[in-house]
Every structure is written in C-alpha cells, then in structure tokens.
C-alpha cells in the first residue's frame, strides 16, 4: 500500500518544529509501524536527508521506549498495543497518517518525535521502591501472599513507563503512571511499611516535574498499551489521602 505521512520535525529542543510530508510507498501489511518508518528513513538517507529521529528498542511492546502520537492518539489507538506492536494491516491504502511526539511540558523534545522522559525516573527515585538492601532477606516462601493480591499487584506492575498516559491527558497528568507503581508496591505486604511515605513522596515529585492535575477523564486508561486500570488512581488517591491525614 501507499501512504502519506505528516511527520513532526524539530532539530532540537531549542528550535521550533513543523510538519513535513513524506510519501511511504510499497508498504506491506505485515510490517510494524516502526518498520514502515525504517523504510521511509532508508529512503531519506539515500536521498541525503536527515532521517526521522524516533525512539524504539525492544520492538516487542515491553521496554516502553517507543512513543508516537499517531493520528492524534498515543500509540495509535488499538487496545493494548504499543507503537512497535502496531502493524500496517491496521491502515488503508492511500491513507494520510499524522505522526507527532508525546506532548507534555515534563517531556521536552530532544529531536523530531523523540522526547526526554527522565521525569518518570525521578518519580521512581523519590519513592517507587521497597527499601531493602541486597542480602539478608527472608526465604521467598516465608511470606505467603494471596493469589488475588499478588495478581492485582502484577496488573499494576505491568506498566512499561512509556508515558502514553501523560501524552493522552489534556492536563498532561502522570497519575496513572504514579498510581501503577504506588499500587504495585502498596498492595503487597513487602511495600506496606513505607506505603504512606511512598505515596506522598511520589506525588510530590510528580507535581515538581510539572505534570498536570488529574480530573479522571480516563483517556490515560484508554491508550495504555498495558491496559492499566483507572481504579489504581482511586487506590493512589486513598493512600495519598490517608498519608496526608496522618501527616506522614
């Protein structure tokens, strides 16, 4: 199939960007979206032009590095699908596809559609862990955890930290990302001792990074490639509220 791409090009964080239009010819249905971009980039390099800079690494939907807003929707709008797992059979011959970067103050653009998401790392550094050192831990089976609790924690822990939730939110809020990590750890007995401190510290850092407020519209849940549930935000709100009341 033949497509037309409208791609956001921006030399770096200091200059202004603009859309450029490129044809994408002889695209095969079995290609992934990123393989389609590879083909376009090969063409750009061959004609001496700068290829489109975009992030990707594992291309299996798990590392969270890929990050494109495709036709206005982060990761392109197919349930539970990251950009790298989106295949061209989802598009029609002759279609025009718009490709933009994640748009959020806290995710500054590096070049073209690649952005800096280190703000997420700093939120984890503020409290997204259990404070145990290596060694001296009890036997793995010393602490039974019910399957239901463990499964729910796993549902939250499945977050890949891609930032689509932020990109989809009209306020660029990071609540779903923070809620996923807080819920993963706070649901488990291992995370219990620090649960108040964790919720407070992570939310504080989130605010400091310039992410917006949450109004629970659910656009984050809709685009999440791991289908992290909005209910975890309720869990975060509860843990944060209790911590604030306790003055922890």
């Amino acid at each position, binding site marked *: 199939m033949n497509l037309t791409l409208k791609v956001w090009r921006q*030399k*770096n964080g200091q200059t202004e960007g603009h859309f450029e239009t490129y044809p994408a010819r002889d695209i095969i*249905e*079995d*290609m992934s979206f*990123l*393989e389609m971009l*590879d*083909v376009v980039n*090969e063409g750009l*390099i*061959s004609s001496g*032009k700068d290829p489109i*800079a975009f992030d*990707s*690494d*594992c*291309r*299996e*939907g*798990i*590392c*969270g*590095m890929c990050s494109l807003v495709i036709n206005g929707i982060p990761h392109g709008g197919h349930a539970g699908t990251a950009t790298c797992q*989106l*295949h061209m059979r989802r598009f029609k011959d002759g279609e025009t596809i718009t490709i933009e970067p994640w748009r959020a103050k806290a995710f500054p653009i*590096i*070049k073209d559609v*690649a952005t*800096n*998401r280190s703000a*997420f*790392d700093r939120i*984890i*550094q503020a409290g*997204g*862990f*259990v*404070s145990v050192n*290596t*060694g001296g*831990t*009890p*036997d*793995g*089976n010393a*602490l*039974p*955890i*019910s*399957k239901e609790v*463990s499964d729910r*924690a*796993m549902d939250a*822990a*499945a977050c890949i930290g891609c930032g689509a939730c932020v990109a989809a939110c009209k306020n660029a809020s990071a609540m779903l990302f923070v809620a996923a990590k807080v819920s*993963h750890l706070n649901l*488990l007995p*291992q*995370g219990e001792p620090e649960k108040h401190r964790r919720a407070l510290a992570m939310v504080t850092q989130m605010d400091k990074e310039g992410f917006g407020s949450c109004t629970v519209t659910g656009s984050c849940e809709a685009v999440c490639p791991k289908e992290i549930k909005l209910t975890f935000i309720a869990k975060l709100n509860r843990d944060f509220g209790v911590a604030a009341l306790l003055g922890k």
Partner: protein
Amino acid sequence: MALESNIPSGPLAQKWDKHKFELKLVNPANKRKFEVIVVGSGLAGASAAATLGELGYKVKCFCYQDSPRRAHSIAAQGGINAAKNYQNDGDSVHRLFYDTIKGGDFRAREANVHRLAQVSVNIIDQCVAQGVPFAREYGGLLSNRSFGGAQVSRTFYARGQTGQQLLLGAYQALSRQIGMGTVKMYPRTEMVDVVVVDGHAKGIVVRDLVSGEISSHAADAVVLATGGYGNVFFLSTNAKGCNVTSIWRAYKKGAYLANPCYTQIHPTCIPVSGDHQSKLTLMSESLRNDGRVWVPKRKEDCTKAPGSIAEDDRDYYLERKYPSYGNLAPRDISSRAAKEACDSGRGVGPGALGVYLDFSAAIKRLSLNVIRERYGNLFDMYEKITGENAYQVPMRIYPAVHYTMGGSWVDYNLMSSLPGLFVVGEANFSDHGANRLGASALMQGLADGYFVLPYTIGNYFATCKQTRPATSHTEFKKVEEDVRKFTERLLSVKGKRTPTSLHRELGKLLWEKCGMARNEKGLKEALKRIPELREEFWKTVNVTGEAMEFNQALEYAGRVADFMEFGELMCLDALERNESCGGHFREEFQTPDGEAARNDDKYAYVAAWEYQGAGKAPVMHKESLEYSEVHMSTRSYK
C-alpha cells in the same frame, strides 16, 4: 599473558564459601573512596550498581537507552531458575548445577556453574523482598513451572513478563541508590572506549547521545554489563540497540573474548515475514509446556490448513525423537530439529520456514481459560504480529538468534584479562558453556550483579592499591582523540549505502555460514567475504547528520562498524573448533543419527582470543576445562 582462572581449591561445593572468606575486604569507611563505573543497566548492571551503591562505593552507571528501566532484560518472558525445591520434586543445588553443566554440553567452567546454582536460591528471596510479583498458588506460596532441559519444576515466573518484573526490581533498587546519591546515572550515554593506565582499566570515554559530546570518566574499576552480541546477525530477538561495542573495544584494549562462536538459536520465535523485518520476536519457551511441536509427515500436506491434517499424518518430531524430554528438549536440540524438518521440505507457512506449535490438545485437556491465564499475553502478542488467533490455529514458529554464550573471558572473580575490568551477565562467557538452558539468563545476570561481583570487586580494591588517575591524564586525552577521529571518519565517507543495508548483508552471511549449522567450507567463505564487506562499509556507508547532535544514524553506524570486525572473529572461532557442541553445530562432526559429536580429547577448553592489532591474526589462548564432580558424558535427552 597466561590465563589464570583463579578457581579456588577445595571440594566443589565449598569453593565459593571458602573463597568469600579468603577475599580481602574493604573497610566500610574506605569504600566511599573507591569509584566504580558500571556500563549497562540490565539485570546484571542494575543489580551490580545498586548493590555496590548500598555497600558504600561511589558508582556511576551508564546506559544508551533513555532510562535504565528499558534494558533488554525487560523482554525476557518465561522465568528464572532457582534450586528451591519448593515443589518437592527432587531438585537441589547439585541438580541445578548438573543440569546447567550438561545443558551447556560440558563446555562451561564447573566452579562457576556450581556457584551460580548455590546463589540461585538467594536471588528469589531478594526479588520477593523487593516486591517482585511472582506467580503464586492459592495457598499464597510461590508457583513454579518447568523449562527445557530439566525434569523438575524450578522456574519462578511473573506471567509472561518475568524479565520485566525482575528488571523493575533491580531498577527500583538502583533508583533508590540514585535518589540517595550513591549512584549517578547517565542515560542516553554510550561507552565508546575503555581507558587503560599502567595496565589497569581506569575509566571509560563516552558519547552523550543527545549532545554528541565526548567525555571521560575515571574510576578504580570498570564493570561491563552490556549484554550479548546477537545483533551481529542483524535479525535476532535482541532489542534494536543491543551491540558488541563495549566488549569489542575492551577486547582491543586487552580483554580477551571467549568462545564467540557459541550463539544460541532459540527454537520458538515468530517466523520472518519479509525483507522489511527489523527484528524477530520470541515466543517464550514456557509455551512448550503445553504446546506440541509438529510438521506434516508428507510434503504435499504442508500447504493444507493444519486443522485438516489427520493426527496420523502429523509428525510430532520432538516427542518422537526425544521421548523423555519431548517438547521440552533443550534449545539447541529443538532448533536443529526444526531446521531438519524444514530442510526435509516439510516446513509450513511463507517460505516453508516454520513448524507448528499446537495448543489444541492442551485446550481440550485443561480448557481455554487455563491456557489463556497461563499464556494470554503471548497469544495476544502473536496475534498482533501475525494477525492469527493461536487459540484456533496452531502457532507457526521458527528458530532465531536469541542469546550469546560467548563473551569477554573472565576469571572466577568475573575479572577479565584486563585487570580492573570486570564483565558480568550475558556480556561474559562464564556459565552457560556451549548452550544456555531456558530461565538461566535471568539467574546468571542477577547472580553476578547481586551476589558475586560485589564480593569479588572488593578484593581487587583491597589488593591492587592503584591510584585513580584524573581525567586530565594523557591517556584519557589520547582515547578521546581516537574516538573523535573514528566519528569523523564515519561521517566523512558519505557513500551510497545505508548502515542498515550493510548490516543486513553481514547478518545474512553469518546466518547462512555461521548460524544453526556450520561447516569448514562455509566458514572459510565467510572469512573471505567479511573483510571485503568491511572494506565496502568503510567505502560506501552513508552516515547523515553531524557529530555534535542527537544522531541515531551515527550511533548505529558505529555499532555496525564493530559488528563488521567481530563477525570475523566469530567465524574464526567456529572454524577452529573442529567438533560440535551445544549451539555450535559443525556438520562434519555429528553422530550417525544427526546429534552433535563432541571431541573432549581435543576441545574441552575455552577459546580465549587476544587482539594483536589491526590487520593481524588474533592469538588463541586455551583454558582447559577440568571436571572434578561430573563425568563428561554424551548429552542425551532421549
């Protein structure tokens, strides 16, 4: 330099404990005086950096990705082995040790593997304490499943995302240290060379991938945790960015490379769909617990719908050939069997390069819901990539490059032949011999990073007594200059070919000549062709953009340049090893029924290659493998 493996004396089961006692310690108050560089933030790198930070060392950690959480360990699906014997099925440290040695086709170092099996139990405890949500039974205890090459259930897992959860555990431990200031993290930063001062590795030179700036970092020791080199084949299950650069450039500075020809071809990957393919995707080996592998018995059935082929007309070849392990035969054996089936003209799907992995019997026996619960995410992934529903039609799978057992040669302390340079995880050669068993890569990465390196590196600090140079030292300036020249050279070719097309050509050549099966003639052809291709690379590569900017084409071209050199050493190593063992299958050396024929009299050694300079043949050093506890038997899974 002679290879000194530094394996402690004494009975095998006591070596590690004895060695830990004999290692010199660094006083807690002195630890902060030592600086350590860790390159890579996967399971091995993140666990090492976090643990060293906790111990009080000053750590700098580097990764090329935008966050340490994205290292390719994250993509491991199936699980992690540990000799817990929670299932009461007869597992023990000794059994895990034995299975790993046997799985590696008796080409791994006995003492290292025993230590790995010993610390495996600590890893599970550590990860549980960090909050890793391993799968659990209704009673609340940890669940296990079985994996290839084992007859016990010792694999711990977190759905089909075990690597992700273990890496996030290590990433969280690392993040905690970053927050506390003991570790400084440098994302989007690529190591481009090691700096050697007075014979010791004392720092690295890096390129900031955002600004293009080249800078130096000095340390008391350097740890490489940069993963495997599977992308030398272009198509592999590795992430796009995985590369050989750090261990290759360290090789040129004196860190020998061991057994580069040992590469693992994983039997269960989604087949190639066309020339556009940028990478391959693994379908976890755990699927073989319930899936049955088959091809049609008759060639003429291969194009028919699988459901229309009668049970009697199917060849469940793994169950037929290896009745005691069946579909859970080890990876090298299963991959070769798939190749054999396709070579006999009975492959299925596009290009007839595929075999079926069929779940219909398991769905009938256990119900659709049970299968969905166990493997749902893998079935979803399969559907996204192929557009097929594997609950209704069998999956099509084919082997693909997945893991590299070879890597930097290291001694028992995980130190390379370049003093002060340690290599951990997949980047070293140490524990898997000629073939790695499933669910053992996660185990080794975390064993090295959490429980081995933090002890052994202290001994180096306590005994070496070398001062840390300043980055103004002439050696750093010289290496920085070399790096700048290399970058300039790449940018100045301005030829007609893209780095991708050259890489693809190299990969295809290696897959054909040094892939699942190798022979002398093919390897010699590859050894003739690779230098020509390398010359073509340097004459025709077109690297766009500039040095001092975010330039992905430049990053990639630098990695391809290293693959162009490394591929030659891989073929040379494969040519020199006149036997078949594990993942290294030389067609000339097979038993009458087509199994790998080892030659223990001549080849029971580790081949460690020493760089001699550009254009000169490398020198091979041999570390002979001696087994005190196991008998080197013929590996049989029949």
